[in-house]
């Protein structure tokens, strides 16, 4: 698992990258009540706002961590946004991306580095 400074996690699954938000981010957001997902099969660039999360407190965006194509989204989150708080690093993945070269993930933090960031 890799981590971005925006508190997203990235996990390689076959030739795809699965993206979600960290437990730390979910806790900070508070109870999530609404999730808006991107359309599958869209090309996105690093930094694009691709998802919206609304908690009881506020709205926030999820940014595309890398350039690539969104090939799948987790429709369960639309019906059950609370999954983001219950299982942020498992069942509550947001989208899967296809990238040209998986080595692009090397730039991101590993677990220890991320723990240092939020510690």
């Amino acid at each position, binding site marked *: 698992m890799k981590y971005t400074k925006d508190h997203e996690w990235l996990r390689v699954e076959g030739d795809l990258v699965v993206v979600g938000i960290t437990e730390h981010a979910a806790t900070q957001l508070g109870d999530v009540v*609404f999730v808006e997902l991107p359309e599958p099969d869209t090309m996105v660039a690093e930094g694009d706002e691709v998802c919206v999360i609304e908690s009881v407190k506020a709205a926030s965006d999820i940014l595309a961590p890398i350039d690539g194509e969104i090939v799948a989204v987790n429709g369960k989150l639309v019906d059950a946004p609370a999954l983001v708080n219950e299982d942020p690093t498992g069942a509550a993945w947001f989208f899967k991306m296809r990238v040209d070269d998986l080595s692009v993930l090397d730039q991101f933090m590993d677990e220890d580095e991320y723990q240092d960031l939020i510690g």
Partner: protein
Amino acid sequence: MADPEPELLHLGLEALHVALGGKMVPFAGYLMPVQYPDGVLKEHLHTRAAAGLFDVSHMGQVILRPKAGMAALKLAFEALMPVDVLGLAEGRQRYGLLTNDQGGILDDLMFTNRGEHLYVVVNAACKAADIAHMTAMMPGVSVEPVADRALLALQGPGAEAALEAVLPGVAAMRFMDHRVIGDIWVSRSGYTGEDGFEISVPEVQAEGFARKLLAQPGVAPIGLGARDSLRLEAGLCLYGHDIDTTTSPVEANLTWALQKARRAGGAREGGFPGAARILRELAQGPERLRVGLCPEGRAPMREGVDLFARDGTPVGRVSSGGFGPSVNAPIAMGYVARSHATLGTELMGEVRGKRLPVTVCELPFHPTSYQR
């Protein structure tokens, strides 16, 4: 180095909030618990199911003491509000609104007739201005800020049993009754739509009193986050958001708070700041009205969301909005042109550049359960 942030004020119960795991944030100049470890959603639902204890000591408690008799005090206070003060019996509380000369709202408040004086609770962010205003406008009245008293709210269906165990006798009180029990002042009122009490306690006793309440079955500490979602579901206004100096009480749909005695044809018609506009709006209807808004989808429509008629004409704006945990849906309140304020009117709200359907709906969103 200069400190750019104004100094935050501290609640007397801050140590208790921290001990309970409260997440402390700045609010209205105070460091306040926005939530406890349970989080906003659970705290909200807990209050509706059992009982929630809120620390609202940031609010302004004020005694209005007459220099020349209660009758003169009541008349002087009536001259500041479109509200019947004379008709309020001893031991009873009422909702009031301080208005300005333009008919806008300077603050909303609760006032209580305590026989020898009036006890007033005002909003934290307005209290300095309110005290200055009342002092300047009522020379025959001593306006005395109450220092060194905490204000707690115990709300929810379990509130009566929990408070009765600590302060026997309160179960006999009805909605908007007020009692002085020793040095504790109790009102049967609140800001959640639930039955409950607001309790003013000398600061030195406050932590012990709060701990006694928290030890009662079903009582949990509740933060500001759930306080906001509870009052929104109850359709209650938040000053500075749903009402302010530009909104009149009639536009704000608070005409229930304007008793007959102060209206056209009443015994003491007019004679309050902004009477010309307020009486005109009562007679002719306001140009815009605060209404309940039910977004059709799941996306919350928050404060500032612009509202449009289905033909694209701008008709208003959301004044507060979010997610209602008990109704399990997004809810909002806002001001819309009177032509579009009828229940069931279908509007559009612009969220992140997209216009989404929203319907004018009845307030409150969640039924109230006051013990009248």
